[in-house]
């Protein structure tokens, strides 16, 4: 990741998780990050404009349920949470990416964001090496950003 985008991502991802999903988020040292098969679920969004690239987010089903519950303002036991976990993750990625692009490039350039979709699981290991880890209410969240 470029330093500018990495810095923007570190600031924006924590802010969005706090503001949109009411989670306490902070950077996670790589040494504390999960390894092996940690049951990660991922979403990806691509953008084009003055630069083109992609961003991915990975986390656990437990965090997806928490995201959905907090964003909808319901208990985790609410039936709506079961169907909304991945949608909540996609929307967090959408908000992080839109805000991150403005943070990194300023409010002038126009970027086109595609609709977020499921991430290819085969990319997880490489993303874990190159990405940025945060802890959100003690759940691991991995962000990866690449510029074409």
């Amino acid at each position: 990741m470029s330093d500018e985008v990495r810095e923007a991502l570190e600031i924006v991802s924590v802010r969005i998780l706090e503001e949109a999903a009411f989670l306490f988020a902070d950077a996670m040292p790589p040494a504390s990050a999960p390894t092996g098969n940690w049951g990660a679920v991922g979403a990806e969004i691509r953008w084009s404009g003055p630069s083109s690239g992609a961003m991915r987010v990975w986390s656990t089903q437990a965090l997806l349920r928490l995201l959905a519950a907090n964003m909808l303002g319901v208990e985790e036991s609410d039936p709506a949470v079961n169907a909304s976990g991945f949608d909540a993750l996609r929307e967090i990625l959408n908000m992080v990416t839109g805000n991150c692009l403005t943070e990194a490039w300023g409010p002038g350039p126009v970027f086109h964001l595609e609709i977020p979709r499921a991430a290819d699981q085969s990319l997880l290991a490489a993303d874990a090496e190159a990405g940025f880890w945060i802890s959100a209410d003690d759940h691991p969240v991995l962000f990866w950003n690449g510029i074409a």
Partner: protein
Amino acid sequence: MGYTVLLVDDSDTIRGALVKAFSMAKLPMDEVVQARDGQEALEVLKRQWIDIVLTDINMPRMGGEELIRAAKSDPSLKDIPIAVISTEGSRTRIDALREVGMADYLRKPCRPEEIRDLLHRVLGEWQ
């Protein structure tokens, strides 16, 4: 009597969060109608009274900018205010949306009081 609002977003979570925000902001709501994209929104607008549309930009089939253009070119729909709630941060893009008829704009994530203030700016203070 209160507002009749049409929420247009392809995310069930975002529509649910906005409904929750209306409640937290204690906004007087008659009805909150929901659509998943611009095409569904146009169908709603043609069959029932809506005070204001709150729409996302990036959606499948028909996005928010196309929805605004379509509504503003239809004499029966052109006076319905359409505000955008989106992750868009480009001043250039927001200015372009205003030029095609966007009534107001909020950036996601937004707080309940920001949504309340937007409705007051566009529709006036509720008496």
